[in-house]
Each structure stands twice: as C-alpha cells, then as structure tokens.
C-alpha cells in the first residue's frame, strides 16, 4: 500500500541530495549578491548616515553587528534542531547534512555576538562581562554549539553521529526561549530587546532601518555560507553515486 503523502512535494524533493545540490546552485548567486549589497549598504548607512545616540554617542553603533549576530545565532540553532528532528523522524540524509553544516556557522556567529557584546559592555556598563541571565544563557548557546560539533566529529558512523547530535540539539532547544525572555523574566544588566518586528521599535526610525537592513543581510550571508557547506557535505557523502562522478569528470 502506497504511503499517503501528507507533506508538500518540495519537502520530499529536499530529501534528494542531487535535487538539493542543483537548487542550491541556483539560489547561491542570488543570496550572495543580496548579502553583499545589504551588508555593504547597511554598514555604510549604519556607520555614516545613522545619527549618534543621545546617551552613548557613537559607541552604540556596534549594535549593527551585535544585534544581527545575536539574532542569527539563535535562528541558526533553531534551524539546526529542526533539521535534526526531521533527520530523526524521516531519516532524511539531507536534513542531517543541514544540521551538521549549521553548527560551525552558528558557533562563529555566537562568538561574534558575545565578543561585540563584551566590547560594547566595557564603555557603557563599565564591565566586559557580567553573569546575568542574558549573557550566561548566550554563553550556554555557544557551549551547545561546541558540544554538537565535538559530538558529531567524535562518532565515526555518519548516521549515529547525526542521531546523537540531533538529540543534543533538541535538548538544547530549551535554551532559545530562555535567551529571548531572560531580560523579561529576571533582573538583568542587559536591557530588553530593541529590535522587534511585532511592536513599535524602541529606536528612532533612521536608526532602526539600517539595523533591519543589517539583520536581513546577516540572514542572506548565513544562507550563502550554509549552502556552501551543505553542497560540500553533499558532494563528500555522495561521492560514490553516479551523478557526482559525472559532475566531477564533467
């Protein structure tokens, strides 16, 4: 008896490494150009044209790196966990590869968020680091990424490694709402969210718009790096299949 298809067609197509390789090949240049334009334009807008803050002066401009990287580090983790779950449930190889490709990118972005936060914290708060709930939960996110990377490379079998890291990623998923709401649930030195799409931003429009551009630019950059790593992973794992051989001998 044929199994009922209850997910859209593209979901099943994604399961094919070959189809995935082809579609990312088409999407890659689009995202690369978008990332370049948005990041260069957004940086220029943020550093040159956006006004200085009434209290922090020019030092607030690090927000244009800090906030996008912090948002992206969390989104990347969610993507890794969801891809891991799909790999666990549907035994989809491509999902495992996506999860594996996410981890090092997310770890780097989390380091960027923590480093820019520390650099920003010194002149504004008067301390590089404070053990408040927001900073600590963000540090835990970095450790989760490092744990996922270590676990993945410690296990020889690709399938077992993917399953183990997916379980770790899913357990760590609980940290994401903690990071997001830490500033509301507890007293923290870190201020509540500035960048929201759902409410009126707590920021003047001419400061908020370049931030929006930078956030979208960071997402596009993530898509580019992610697809590059994914394609690399696909080629490596499918190296014995006929289509990869054809591609290489091409």
């Amino acid at each position, binding site marked *: 008896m044929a199994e009922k298809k209850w997910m859209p067609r593209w979901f099943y197509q994604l399961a094919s490494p070959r189809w995935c390789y082809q579609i990312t090949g088409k999407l890659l240049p689009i995202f690369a150009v978008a990332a370049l334009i948005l990041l260069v334009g957004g940086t220029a807008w943020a550093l040159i044209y956006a*006004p200085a803050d009434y209290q922090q002066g020019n030092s607030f401009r690090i927000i244009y790196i800090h906030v996008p990287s912090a948002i992206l580090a969390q989104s990347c983790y969610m993507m890794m966990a969801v891809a891991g779950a799909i790999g666990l*449930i549907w035994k989809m190889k491509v999902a495992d590869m996506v999860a594996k490709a996410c981890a090092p990118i997310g770890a780097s972005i989390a380091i960027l968020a923590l480093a820019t936060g520390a650099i920003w914290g010194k002149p*504004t708060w*008067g301390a590089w680091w404070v053990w408040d709930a927001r900073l600590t939960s963000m540090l835990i996110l970095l450790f989760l990424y490092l744990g996922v990377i270590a676990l993945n490379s410690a296990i020889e079998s690709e399938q077992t490694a993917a399953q183990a890291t997916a379980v770790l990623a899913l357990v760590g*998923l609980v940290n994401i709402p903690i990071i997001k709401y830490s500033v509301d649930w507890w007293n923290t030195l870190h201020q509540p969210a500035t960048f929201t799409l759902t409410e009126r931003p707590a920021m003047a429009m001419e400061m908020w718009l370049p931030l929006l551009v930078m956030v979208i630019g960071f997402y596009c950059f993530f898509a580019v790096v992610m697809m590059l790593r994914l394609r690399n992973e696909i080629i490596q794992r499918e190296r014995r299949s006929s289509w990869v051989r054809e591609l290489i001998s091409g």
Partner: protein
Amino acid sequence: MNPKRKQRLIIVLFIVFGAAIAVGLVMYALNQNINLFYSPTDIVEGKAPEGTRIRAGGMVVEGSVNRDQQSLQVEFGMTDYANNVTVVYNGILPDLFREGQGIVAQGQMNSEGVFEAVEVLAKHDENYMPPEVADALERAGQMPEQIRAKEAGQQ
C-alpha cells in the same frame, strides 16, 4: 504518517518537552539566584541577605548625587520608585552613570542601612534616539525615564 515515523515524532516531542519541563522546574527553584540584583524594595523589606555581598539595582535619584571634593567618594540615592536606598561608592563611575539612569551596584549593607558599593555598573535601557529627538522629547516631558517615573508614580 507511518507508525514508525509517528513513534519517532513522539520521541522527539518527548525530548523537547521533557527538557523544557526539567529546565523550567530548575529555574523556578533557582529563581532568586538568577536575578542579577535586588531592588531597593527587596532590601528595605529585608528580602536581600544581610552581612554578605549582594548586587542592588535601581534608578539614581534625580539631584541626589553628592561628590566629595577631596576624593573619589560619591554618595547617591537609588530608587525603584517605591523605596530608596542610599549608596556610597569610592571609585570611578562608568560614562553612562547619570541621575535618572539605571545602575547595578555590587556591595554590602552596613549597620546604618547605607549600601557600600565596591562596583557600580551603568544599566542602560532599550531606547536609542538621536540627540535632537531626545531634546524635543525632554522639552515635551516625554523621555522614557520620565514616562516610567510617571507610570510608577501612578501605581
């Protein structure tokens, strides 16, 4: 969905919700320890431990900052718009330290009920605006801290 996948889906959901409940209970139990600081009300009501180093956070009371002319000693009032605590500190204050701004101080309550700080950190809020906008809002009495003070006064 076939039964095997359904079973695996249930396992995945179990992992996610199990972890969430476990962590949620731990954090509920540790609630007070996760808070970075005590508010002046906590201190006045005796919720903060005495005789040990704690962090206290609140707003610097307008017009309360008193600098010693000979040393770095500074004295100011800290408020959460319900209760006040006097803070003394001997050291360099961060750039963002201002009257009406939030701070977090680390230190100890002394026998006279004065908070002796060994570290003062500035806490800034989520509002960013260009100086001209700040000036305009100031004139209209619409600055974020003024609004907050007003709201706190109404409660």
